[in-house]
């Protein structure tokens, strides 16, 4: 009962914090969209008359005070109405949702690759600290964190598509299309996760309870994965949370290089086309996703480490 009460309170506080964050994001998005120029001049034909402009101004409510405009914007956003995309001539929310599955597919695959590759390598690297495996892993991690994503993407295309002819260059379709963009997108995160896992494992492997477990004669695999890894998991989970966010926000470059039709490319195109309803929808909806992921990470964190929920 005490646990449930603590956990509920913990969740409520986190949800409240998330809502405040979203409200702040909505204010920033609203202010920035007004600072970047009169939205009407973006929508209207350059040859429009002053009368045309005034009529449209009134129709869109842009002749009202900024607080009133913000209230309308917020109320509409809560109903999923971010206005009509200037470019697509359809609802901005609808356009965003249409592109979201592609980004989730790419991000999900990149995340799966990370879980399957980066974590085991990080663990093994810590276990064999200073050995050849550790050295190679650290070198790969360093390269991964230093190389720009677009460069990695183009190098992978040149190697696996142009030179070897193993994989398709661009587009979305079969699993083969997913390989190069997923590796590219997950590249930086993998390197980061590998280093965090290694570092967290090194901290734990030197503790007394791990030494005790070994002295008790437990199999090494059990010592590493059950005793050490579980205790190192808190920082890994936090990193995974951050990574999952960057897989959405960082998809901008990868989706452009690999012609992947997701929200990253949509957002970049919308910025260049000054399609501010789509930009607003994308920023706010990505913020919602970030807040949701953070909340999920906090919950997992609290579940793994009881100290968190008692703070």
């Amino acid at each position, binding site marked *: 009962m005490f646990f449930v009460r603590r956990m509920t309170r913990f969740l409520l506080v986190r949800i409240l914090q998330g809502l405040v964050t979203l409200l702040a994001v909505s204010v920033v998005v609203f202010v920035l969209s007004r600072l970047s*120029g009169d939205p009407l*001049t*973006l929508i209207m*034909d*350059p*040859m429009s008359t002053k009368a045309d402009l005034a009529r449209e101004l009134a129709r869109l409510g842009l002749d009202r005070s900024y607080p009133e405009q913000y209230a309308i914007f917020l109320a509409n956003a809560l109903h999923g109405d971010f206005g009509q995309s200037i*470019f*697509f*001539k359809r609802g901005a929310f609808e356009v965003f949702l*249409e*592109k979201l599955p*592609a980004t989730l597919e790419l991000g999900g695959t990149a995340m799966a690759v990370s879980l399957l590759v980066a974590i085991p390598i990080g663990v093994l690297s810590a276990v064999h600290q200073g050995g050849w495996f550790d050295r190679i892993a650290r070198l790969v991690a360093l390269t991964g964190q230093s190389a720009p994503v677009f460069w990695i993407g*183009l190098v992978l*295309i*040149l190697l696996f*598509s*142009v030179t070897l*002819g193993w994989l*398709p*260059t*661009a*587009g*979305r*379709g079969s699993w083969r299309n997913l390989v190069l963009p997923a590796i590219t997108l997950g590249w930086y995160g993998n390197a980061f996760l590998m280093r965090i896992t290694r570092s967290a494992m090194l901290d734990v492997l030197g503790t007394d309870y791990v030494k005790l477990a070994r002295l008790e004669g437990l199999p090494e695999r059990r010592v590493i994965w059950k005793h050490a890894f579980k205790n190192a998991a808190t920082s890994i989970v936090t990193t995974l949370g951050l990574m999952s966010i960057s897989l959405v926000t960082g998809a901008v470059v990868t989706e*452009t*290089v*690999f*012609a992947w*039709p997701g929200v990253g*490319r949509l957002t970049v*195109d919308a910025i*260049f086309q*000054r399609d501010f309803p789509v930009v607003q929808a994308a920023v706010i909806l990505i913020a919602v996703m970030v807040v949701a992921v953070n909340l999920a990470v906090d919950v997992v964190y609290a579940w793994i480490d009881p100290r968190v929920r008692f703070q």
Partner: protein
Amino acid sequence: MRRFLLASAFAALAAPAMAQSLTFAINNLGAETWWPQDISANKYITSNIGDPLVRLASPYALEPALVKEWTSAPDGLSFTFTLRDDVLFHDGSKLTAEDVLFSYAPANVEKFVGFTGIKGGNITALEAHGNTVVMRLGKPVPGIRDNYFVRASIWPKAYVEKVGIEGFNKHPVGAGPFRFVEHVKGQYVKLAAWEKYYGDVPKLKEVTFRIVPEPATRLAMLRTGEADITYNEVGASTGELKKYGFRGQAYGQPFQAALIFNSLLTLDRQPGRFDDVRVRKALIMAVDRKVIADAVYFGAAVPAALPVVATSMPYYDPKYKPMATDVAGAKKLLAEAGHPDGLSFDFMAGTNNKDLAVLLVSFWQRAGIKANLNLVDPVTLSRAWWQRTVPGDQVMLVGGLANGMASAVYLNSKSGVAMYAGAKIDTVYNEGAAVVDPALQEAWLRDKLLPVMEAEYPYAPVLEYQEGVLGFGPKVKSWTRFDLHSFGLQWLEPK
């Protein structure tokens, strides 16, 4: 007989098979809607699905498409089109005069060509007499052939009314050489040859347009064979094509990078330093444009000679040469215009033209011209130009069409686009507006428009280039003909 059959079979096996389908990697397909009256609809798709009444056979001459014949009244106030009777839309229905009336309805015309300055209100009557359609205008419309007849495809009225605009956007139907097969948003569009096309059936069976925004990826696709044709922006990617030995072909309409002069203190133009044509000419004379063309456009651009008409147009008179670089001459012109110590002004350019703008500024410095470069996004620049909202003496670097008749609209001083279009240019422009006969239009362009451009220099042409460069892979034999307003896949020949 058996020997003959065997020989034939071997011959068939030995002969290289003609490519049945090609893939075109393109930078984007706009909003990926196909309703032709929407300005953002993509011409690569719509111009192959729909056919107009007449089309451009060369950059100037027209040839019949959906019509057997067409005539225009000498005063340019009426046009008569006699339709072919063998045209079938892709849904199997037959083309009728009703479809033409529907496609040319004033409400549609207004939206369709509003940006060119031709308004639907000019069409006073559209009449159908059996298989003949008569269009009457209230006043002559300059460039109506180039801007409207060749662009406005004819669509099946019954189908559009049945499925609505949304339905049409999902599956457009026209009478063009290719029919719409499949579209996956953000990824590709597939077209197939229309077997019952009234003209020559295309040599290709299928064409897939794949949307690939990154130029380096498009080039990689050409190298792997995943793409047979790539769209390449004029510039670095053109150089890359050459590097890997692919054939390239200039594509699209001629464009001009030009300087627009702006002397505004309020919304009405105030007298400014650029009023003197010698100042406007000095800004070009001071610049080595060949160096810029090579450095920025990898040789895919040339110095421009006169505003509005590119030197590549067939009716261009070669006696008008691009101004030679002459720094001393530029200084002399400035001194004669009352600026012996040079000149300084604000210079606004789009971020897309950053390299070009920076080089212009550095060349100007040699002639004592100081430009304070202000890089803005292209949309802001376009609006500052069209809406005349930026006060003070300004020079703007813009890009615009330079195909003569169609771009002459930029000269109309009432449009507010050409700041230095005055009475002389207006007179010539209005004369041209009334000319409808193709030969006379050509004569007007050559004998009237070009001289006034040289004398008045309403804006200063810097470089001219075409919209892009197409890279061809080994499966493409040739693309023999480009229509300036469309993207005729029927003239694409595979190997």
